[in-house]
Structure formats: structure tokens, C-alpha cells
């Protein structure tokens, strides 16, 4: 895995950790997805979506849920 992707995984997991309150993963995932949409560059979004599709093992629970939402947003935008 290249450094860039490794860093993106660390970043998204950190964002998830900082938005998790009282274990409410769904709510946190919503906030994380909004954050990614608002602040991450297209290439960063694409890389994390592709990683979640092909492996995703290093994503924590909230991050996984957030990437699903991000993917749905990406698809909706494309259509």
C-alpha cells in the first residue's frame, strides 16, 4: 500500500474517532461523510472509495459506513 493511501486511511479513521459520540456509529458516519464531501479532494475520495471496495480492512466501523455514504453521494452526483 502506498503512503498516500495509508495516510488517507489514517485520516478517515481519525475523523471517525473524533465524531463518534456515545457509540452512535450511524450518526457519526453521517458527519464523517459530510466532512469528506466538503473537504476532501476528488482524488482522495476516489482512492478511499476504491480501497473500501477492494479491501477496506483497515477502515474502522464508522469509516466503513461513511465511505458507503460517500460512494452513494458520488454515484448520485454522476447520474
Amino acid at each position, binding site marked *: 500500500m502506498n503512503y498516500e493511501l495509508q*495516510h488517507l486511511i489514517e*485520516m478517515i479513521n481519525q475523523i471517525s474517532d*473524533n465524531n463518534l459520540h456515545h457509540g452512535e456509529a450511524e450518526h457519526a458516519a453521517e458527519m464523517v461523510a459530510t466532512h469528506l464531501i466538503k*473537504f476532501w*479532494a476528488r482524488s482522495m475520495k476516489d482512492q478511499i472509495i476504491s480501497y473500501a471496495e477492494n479491501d477496506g480492512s483497515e477502515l474502522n466501523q464508522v469509516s466503513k459506513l461513511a465511505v458507503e455514504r460517500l460512494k452513494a453521494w458520488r454515484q448520485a452526483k454522476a447520474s
Partner: protein
Amino acid sequence: MLNYFDPSQHRIDPDRDYGTPARLSEKAVALTIDGVEISVPEGTSVMRAAALAGITVPKLCASDNLEAFGSCRLCAVEIEGRRGYPASCTTPVAEGMEVTTQNGKLAKLRRNIMELYISDHPLDCLTCPANGDCELQDMAGAVGLRDVRYGFEGQNHLDAETDASNPYFSFDPSKCIVCSRCVRACEEVQGTFALTIDGRGFDSKVAASQDEDFMDSECVSCGACVQACPTSTLMEKSVIEAGVPEHSVVTTCAYCGVGCSFKAEMKGDQLVRMVPYKGGDANHGHSCVKGRFAFGYATHKDRITEPMIRDAIDQPWRTVSWEEAIAFSAKRLKDIQAQYGRESIGGITSSRCTNEETYLVQKLVRAGFGNNNTDTCARVCHSPTGYGLKTTLGESAGTQTFDSVMEADTILVIGANPTDAHPVFASQMRRRLRQGATLIVADPRRIDLLKTPHGSTSMHLPLRPGTNVALVNSLAHVVVTEGLEDTAFIEKRCEPDAYKAWREFISEERNSPETLEAETGVPADLVRKAARAYATAGNGAIYYGLGVTEHSQGSTMVMGIANLALATGNLGREGVGVNPLRGQNNVQGSCDMGSFPHELPGYQHVGDPAVRERFENLWHVKIDDEPGLRIPNMFDAAIAGHFKALYVQGEDIAQSDPNTQHVEQALTSLDCLIVQDIFLNETAKYAHVLLPGSTFLEKNGTFTNAERRINRVRKVMAPVAGKEDWEVTQDLANALGYPMNYSHPSEIMDEIAQLTPTFTGVSYERLDELGSIQWPCNEEHPDGTPTMHELDFPIGKGHFAITEYVATPERSTRRYPLLLTTGRILSQYNVGAQTRRTENSRWHEEDVLEIHPSDAELRGISDGDWLGVSSRVGQTVLRCRISDRMQPGVVYTTFHHPGSGANVITTDSSDWATNCPEYKVTAVQVEKVSQPSEWQKHFQSFDEQQHKYLEKSKDEPNFALK
């Protein structure tokens, strides 16, 4: 004729000395001076009232930035019905008073006084450096002194020796009249109390500290005494050398975020001295050692004066014409985009350049490059402020004016060191502390503000680095659970649901100071005491710096601070607020101008189609609807191979960004690095194109300071390489096929005003008229907005954010048992590119590692030893200074010198929301060593090689220009 004095009418002429400070009483007192009727605020001195009426009373010991002293007696007047000749400076006005300032008796009295002064003063006026700029000389003329009957034979001070130890000014006591203006300026204006009048009667003399040389004393070289001196006793060496300046231009300092106004005093195009401008609303005529004296870098021999290019960084530079350098850059950028795609290039705007220049760089990126890969050095300092304040208060900016601190009852300073990093504001803060305000400092280090002479109550919360959020949560916990909230404010001004959720969260026992004491290291009772002092003071004001933002939870901490202010109702009026102290001169401005990859100017998101449409209509180009890469993401992408070119204006990322070796790897991965700077900085050593930058003295524009104040920057000399920075960006845009045709920065500002809702009322005409403007300035606030959020928030209601404490992964371990934190010192500025090229280096020749005595003892370390400092990413070597300003377990250094390699050890750990690096926490080990680190050895040889390449370019004949 009755003249009413109304301060709101801006009748005060900043170039005139009114003798004593203004009084702000609303009660007016009417009196007659030399037959002229005038009405002034109660408490005003007769001297000031006279000056306001246009009448000049002779004076020597009085100055309107100092309280009246009444020692020279030259300002004696006659007052109808009163005995004797009272000093007009110490006599307050009274209703119906009739004052005479000139008559035969007064003239004789004044002549006698002057005669005594001159009997112990050298008569070398013609060769004196103050000739033509001396108040003593002026007064001798004004009182008509023609004779000194006492002779010069008796005991005198004419042989007193000059102290020339300070690099910027000399102290010649033979010229001193002991008016004590310097002593009072040091106390009242600067607040350092370094000067005193030593001795009594004839032996009285001005002394620094314990009668030491100025350089060895506590003097911080702010220049207030030099400015206050009415003779040439304290005199700038530059004036001694060059003579008295012949014209001056008011401009804005390019150092810290205070944004002081200065008069650049000139002889032709030579800058002789910078004198703080009394009309400047940020500094009111005060200055620090950087802005006042450290301007010599502008004419330093190291300035890059011609454009240069090269194909690879292991080649010498070739000096070329501007046209060739621009064409070379444009071709490379276009070729790279053709090969690697639209998103493969980007640009970095500078927080040291003007608003107009910053705006233009981000416009070049968005419109010319066709992507949003723009970022700025604020990424590594205050990006969490933008995120945190926008989320909670709805606007990415501080809420107050600097003057607001004079109404504060409790001042809470978190992770900031104002006496070193924002010295002029620190002086104002200290003035308020002397008046009795309570000070709370939350900082791992015992900062100098805690040692304010004659300060009132102060508390130090020495938290462990990395535990800010735990501390702010425990402060808020006390506020909520002890019933100290401002419920009326919360009810009226805050979102109820978010408040309810936050209140439940913060009330949980896990947020109590008792529980979190184990994390923060701050005793719970001290936290409780501090919370009460802040919440119940009346006016509680928070000031914070990079000790808040440069953490893995920087954004959370900013939100925690906003929560605290919302909960206690400390927002929306004078004396309160949330105030980020900005590091560089135009950090606020660079953020305002759309430097961040996700936001267009005015913090308008690129994802908003309505926003994009307005920009697209004016820019005639399609704007990408997704954010671009931030600086750290650019580095990662460069190493990964899909980010290939970068245009950097005025930022030294190779020195200032964390994990230097990673940055160096990223920079060497680029196919084209274009650096626009005034020197061959560390980043430029990795560049393919070097475009000469211009200093703030060489261009027109505006800077926006930490209080949102837009100040004019005015050109006083021609740019050394012929172009202001905005002109270079414009040339590059045109070469890339995106037309830009500005003929003056004022036209750029007009465009900014069209596109930025908070700037619609800003123009150069309005700035000239008002002096400065604090944004928002629009239809609603035509004269600007000194205090934000008075009635509502830009997001309607204030938003309490849940601020869970998540400990940083960067923790001390057995291998790296100490925590390194970084900071700044007074005499140096940021990467030091400017200040290292001035005499300021006399105060700080090298970066050192401060270590607590117990940690030093444990490792057998002595003061002055060479220490190897290692973290998980690198090692560097610094000299040891043993100091108890830190707690055991914490070490501290600065990064003003590139060879110190402080950022070789800082890691890529960063704020979760913004990627602002965690400079303030790095786990390290420290040990005694005998030689420089591997990185330092590499740095030295690389540095030498790059300087040779530069030298070579100077030797080569310039074919391009022939």
C-alpha cells in the same frame, strides 16, 4: 466661537502631539483659552484642551501617549482666579476656567527654565543627529532663549559616555534632560519597566535595569523610549548615519498578525526609520523590535533580483528575463497538465503577501489551472480556527478589536505567548492587567505574561501537551454544573437542541476536572477556580494561539473554546469574545481571500452552485465543484506520482512544514516547482523556477490583521526586480492563456468586493477615508464591524458542538519518553528568512533545546551541551539550555534557523478536521551527542551546493537580456 470636541468626528490629527492622553468622559466641560472657547470631555488637561483649540503650549516632559508628569514646568500657564503658574499638563479643565497661555511673565518664566536646561546641554546642534527633529531645540526657539547666564564651567553631565550596545539605537546621556519620558514609555506604553531614573537631584540619570548596558538589560528594544525622547539622547543609529528623513508614507508592518501601522520615514527611496503611527487603530503608536527596527532585510545582499530557471535541481541556475522565466513556467505547467491531467498541478498562496496577491494566486489556480488545488500557510497554523469558529459561531474570524481587551475583567490566554509573538498587543494586555484584570494562562510553559510587572491576580494552568480538549471540557463542566451559565444568552442566542445535547455531554462526570486531572495534570481545584474567574468576571475574554490549533484535536479545541464563550454569554460586546492571535501579518486575509481548496473568497464553498455561478460569470470560466488538495495531501500525491507541479508564492514549506524529510521527498518528486520569494529560501533550493518577490515596502495592497482590520500597504520604494508580486502572477496567468489585466491592486480589491459579501463596502477610497476597515463591511455595516455577533450569528443561532476528548496517538513511550513542543521568540519571525538577515540575530543566534533540570540531570546533560533529539521520523542536534519554564517531561524549541532541523523531528500527525500539523506534540528522546545529525550533514552539503548554483548564475553573462 465655541469649538466642540467630538472624538467621533475624527478631528484628531495623528501627526500632532496633544500633550496628554484623551479622556473619554461623556460630560463636557467648557472653558476659555486665550479668548478661544472650547468644550472638552471632563478630566482633559488644560494642555490638551489648548491643543484641541489649536493653541500650542510649550512643553518638554509631556507627550500624549503618556500620563502627565509635570516635571519640566515649561507648560506653566495663568488661570484666572488661581495662584501662581500651574503646569497645564497636570491641571484638569474646570467649567468656566479662563486660561492664558502667553504673556510676558510666562515668557520670562519659560526662558528661565530653558536657560537652566541648556546650561547642562551640549551646544552642538549643527552636528547633532536630532538637528531639525529636536523638541529641546524647538522649545529653545519657541521661548526665545538668547542667552545662558550660568556659563558651562560648573558641574555638568557633558562628558557622560554613550551606550551604543543596542544594534539599533544609541543612548547618549550627555544630551539627556531627565524628563523621564523614556522611563514612562517603558512602563506605560511597553509595560516592561526596564528603565528607571537612578539617583537623586543632580545625580539623577536614566538607567537600564541595574545600571547595565541596554543590550544586557531587560530592555526588549521596542523603541518606545526612542520615540518618546525629545532630544537625541535615545536615537536610531540609522538616523545618526543617514540624517533626518525628508518624507514619510503610512503603511502596515509585514511581521505578525497585530498589523501595526508605521510611518516609513524616507530619504528619497532609502528607508531611514520606521516610526509607529499614532493613527494606526491596531497599535496606537506602539511597536516591537521586529516592526520598528528589523527592516534591513529588504535591502540585504541576499535578495533575489533576477528571475532564474533550470531544468533540474542538480544544475546551476540560469539568469533569464522575466518573459523567458514566465514562458518557461507556463510551458512546463501546460505540458504537465497535458501529460498527467488537470489536477496534477497546484499553487500555494502566501500569508505574508497582500490580500490582492493572495486573491490572484487562488484565482490563477481555480481559473487558470482549472482546479481547486490551492492552499496557504494558514493550513499549518490557523486552519482549525476557520473550521471551529465557522461551525460554532458561523464566521471564521476573531470576534473583537484589540482595544476590546481594555474592557475585559478576566483574560484567558490559551496556547499563546503574546509577549513574544504579538508583542504590541501584549503591551495593551499588560496595561489592562495592571489596571486589575485577572489573568488565566493555560499553557505547558510558564510564559512571560505571567510575570507582568504590577499585574493583578494570575493563575497558571500548566497542562500536559496534547490535553487541551480535556482541559476546556473540564472548564465547561464546572460552568455548567456549578450554575455559572448565562441562561438568558443561551436561550436567546443559541440553538436549543444542540445546546441540550452538549449540556448533557459536558455534565457527564467523565468531563469533570477531578476525572480529567489525570490527563491534563492540572489540579482540579485550580481548574474550578479558573472556570469561576472566567464565568463570573463580568467580561471574560479568550485569546488563543497555535498552542490551540496545532494539535490532533485543534479544531475540536477551537469549538470547545467557542462553547465556553457561548455558555457564559461572553460574546457580542466589548471586553469579551473569542480571539485567535494570528501568526503572520496576513493569515486572516489569506484565509478570507479563498486560499483554502474548499472555499472561494469570503468562505464560500466551491460545492455551492449559486456561489460558483457568481464567480464564473465574472471570471468567465468554469470552476471545479469539488475541493482541491491541501498542502499535506499535495505532498502525498507528489510522492505517489500524480501531483507534478507547484507554484509557491512566499512560503517556505521546506522549513516550516512538519516532517522535513517527507517534504523534501515530495519536492524532489515534482517535475516543476516555481518559487516566488525574496530570498533563496529552503524551498527554492528544490525549485526549477525562481521568481524574485517584492517586500511589503515595494508594493501596494492591503493586509488583514487578527481583528479583521484591513489596512493599506503602501509602496515606498521600487521592487528590486521591477515587479510587484501580483504583477508576476498576472503575467503567469496571461502566459497560460487566462487573461488578467489589472493595472493597480485597487482594481483587484474592487473585484474582491464584488464577489465577497463581507467586503462589498471595501475599496481603496474608503480605506483612505477611514484609515482601516474591519470586515464585514457592507450595506448593513458601512463603516465595518468592530465587534462581531452583537445581535445574531451569521448562522442565525450559536451552535454548541460536542467536543469529545480523543487523546493524540503521539504519546510519550519508553523509546521516546519526552514531549517536544515548539514555539517562537520575540526577536525572530517564523522561519527567520527576514529577521535572520537583520541585527535581530544578536538576540537569538541559534535555536536551542530547553529542557527541565530534572530531565537534564537524569541524562547527565549540562547547559550548552549538544543534544541529539530523535522522534519516530527523524533526528536533529541542538544546543541545550536548562530551563524550568517547562514541566519535567516536556522539552521546547523554536524553528527560526533552517539548520536546526526542528521540523525534521515533528511528525505528520495532524488535526483531524483540517490536517493542521501537530507541531505542539512530538514524542522524543534526548541524549548527549558530539556531532550533527545525518540530516544536518546532508542539509549543510545541499545548502552549500545550492548556494554555489546561485553564485554561478551571478557570474554568468546574462544572454537573455542582451
